[in-house]
């Protein structure tokens, strides 16, 4: 909101001052089990800056009306704020037009939308859908459902020992039958940054349409969909430090226009009669029912916050944290992490020899350190590395070297308790 000044944003031209950035995130300043919180579960969800909380508050306290239908002031304000969020998302992604931005519940719904509409309309028996071995379940299951319905086949580009899909392997799995290629920009389980622009070129050359799952990249990298060259890009609001329950599907206007609607209901129609219903123009054709208005407004505030902060600066700072983390954690005996890709973000999928990730996470929690233990909704990549689960520390631009030290000390405590 205009009246909530972000100190960090004002300092955008100065060197990264992490303490100033942290001051924008009230949840970071708390004690957990008697220790200052060390929040290292950013791949699961990000904490929210004051600007987002203020935007939500403002909508519910002042501008709460329904959108696209109210003549009254509140409805007008709500509509303006909602559509402004769409323009912010357009700018954030470097998209050509606001109408290419469809609000969804999140990345999962965005992928399901494309599978259920573009996929159902264009795939036939014998066609192929290309995925990689490091996808999140949300970029696997919608395609499996589509394959079941259409008789298409899911193919998988396999991951090497470093946690990368090599270009030769990607090309090997492409064929003239590949109609859709869908892959994550950054692996949530490994932190691998995939060369999605190059993959997109190859997939386009084979005649496929490309969807990039940007759930893990939108919070950490500057995104320009025109530079990536893809056809669809999906991300979630809560991972870019906005509210839960809201996300974005970007699609090329000509593709979105040709796609059948996703859900039927209010707002997605031009006119309805029992004889014939005509659909609204894009993006409204894909936004049936009253959407998550507050969520979209809050997401817009989050994206404005990130833009003011500067995604390139944030990414550079996170790379420094990644190098420091790698150095600090590699020095710990009995601790390793899976995923050694040359291009990585600050994600460490840790294995403590002889200790189950769940026990690691419990010990760390008593030290006030929040990590994720489990298979990270990416069971195939866990199988690939022969582990049932890992303890994942995923960092963001508000984390510090000192917090990496706290993690290392916590892991030493784990080894002391389990005497390994």
């Amino acid at each position: 909101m205009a009246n909530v000044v972000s100190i960090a944003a004002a300092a955008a031209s100065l060197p990264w001052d992490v303490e100033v950035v942290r001051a924008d995130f009230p949840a970071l300043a708390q004690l957990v089990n008697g220790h200052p919180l060390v929040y290292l579960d950013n791949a699961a969800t990000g904490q929210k800056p004051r600007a987002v909380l203020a935007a939500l508050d403002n909508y519910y306290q002042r501008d709460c009306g329904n959108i696209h239908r109210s003549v009254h002031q509140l409805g007008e304000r709500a509509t303006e704020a909602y559509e402004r969020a769409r323009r912010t998302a357009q700018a954030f992604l470097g998209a050509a037009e606001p109408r290419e931005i469809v609000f969804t519940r999140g990345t999962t719904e965005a992928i399901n939308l494309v599978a259920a509409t573009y996929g159902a309309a264009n795939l036939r028996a014998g066609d192929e859908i290309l995925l990689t071995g490091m996808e999140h379940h949300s970029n696997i299951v919608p395609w499996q459902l589509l394959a079941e319905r259409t008789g298409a086949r899911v193919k998988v580009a396999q991951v090497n020992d470093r946690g990368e899909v090599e270009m030769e392997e990607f090309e090997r799995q492409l064929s003239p039958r590949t109609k859709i290629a869908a892959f994550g920009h950054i692996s949530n389980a490994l932190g691998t940054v995939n060369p999605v622009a190059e993959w997109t070129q190859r997939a386009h050359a084979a005649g496929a349409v490309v969807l990039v799952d940007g759930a893990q990249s939108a919070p950490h990298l500057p995104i320009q969909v025109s530079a990536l060259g893809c056809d669809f890009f999906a991300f979630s609001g809560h991972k870019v430090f906005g509210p839960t329950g809201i996300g974005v599907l970007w699609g090329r206007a000509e593709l979105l226009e040709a796609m059948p609607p996703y859900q039927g209901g209010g707002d997605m129609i031009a006119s309805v009669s029992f004889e014939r219903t005509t659909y609204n123009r894009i993006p409204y054709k894909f936004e049936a029912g009253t959407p998550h208005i507050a969520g979209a407004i809050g997401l817009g505030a989050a994206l404005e916050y990130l833009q003011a902060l500067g995604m390139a600066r944030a990414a550079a700072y996170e790379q420094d944290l990644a190098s420091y983390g790698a150095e600090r954690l590699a020095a710990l005996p009995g601790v390793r992490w899976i995923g050694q890709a040359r291009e990585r973000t600050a994600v460490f999928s840790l294995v403590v020899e002889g200790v189950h990730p769940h026990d690691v996470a419990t010990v760390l929690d008593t030290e006030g350190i929040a990590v994720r233990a489990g298979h990270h909704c990416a069971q195939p990549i866990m199988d690939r590395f022969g582990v049932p689960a890992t303890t994942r520390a995923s960092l963001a631009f508000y984390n510090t070297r000192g917090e990496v030290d706290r993690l290392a000390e916590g892991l030493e405590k784990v080894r002391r308790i389990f005497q390994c």
Partner: protein
Amino acid sequence: MPELDELYQELILDHAKRPRNFRVPEGADRRAEGFNRLCGDRITLFLRLEDGVVRDAGFQGAGCAIFTASASLLTEAVKGKSEQQAEDLFRRFHALVTGHADQAQAETLGKLAAFGGVSAYPVRVKCASLAWHTLKAALSGDGAPVSTEE
């Protein structure tokens, strides 16, 4: 603040490292599988019953320390118990790990009382109780895999 050594007591760490009855008992006539979706704990529990009494018990699987120790101590605790006694034990164990047992009730559980610290860690209750849910399935003999997602 919950104390970590209340959760990871000596007895639990010992059974987690060296689980007892980690085997398929000879002549096992009941078997059930359990799975904790949250953290991937997996168990296959085997029983040998004679006249409704558990004569032998063993398990296979993998999981966290709380889960492994719980399965290990379960296989020791149920030997010689009738189906009814085993189910009664589960009920009392469940009360313990969910914080619904007082001191006197905890003491009736013998070694299993070591799991008293689990009640301070609600997300770990599933780890402690998975083997017991699986036991119930093995005793009822319906053979359906057990999940902790009730």
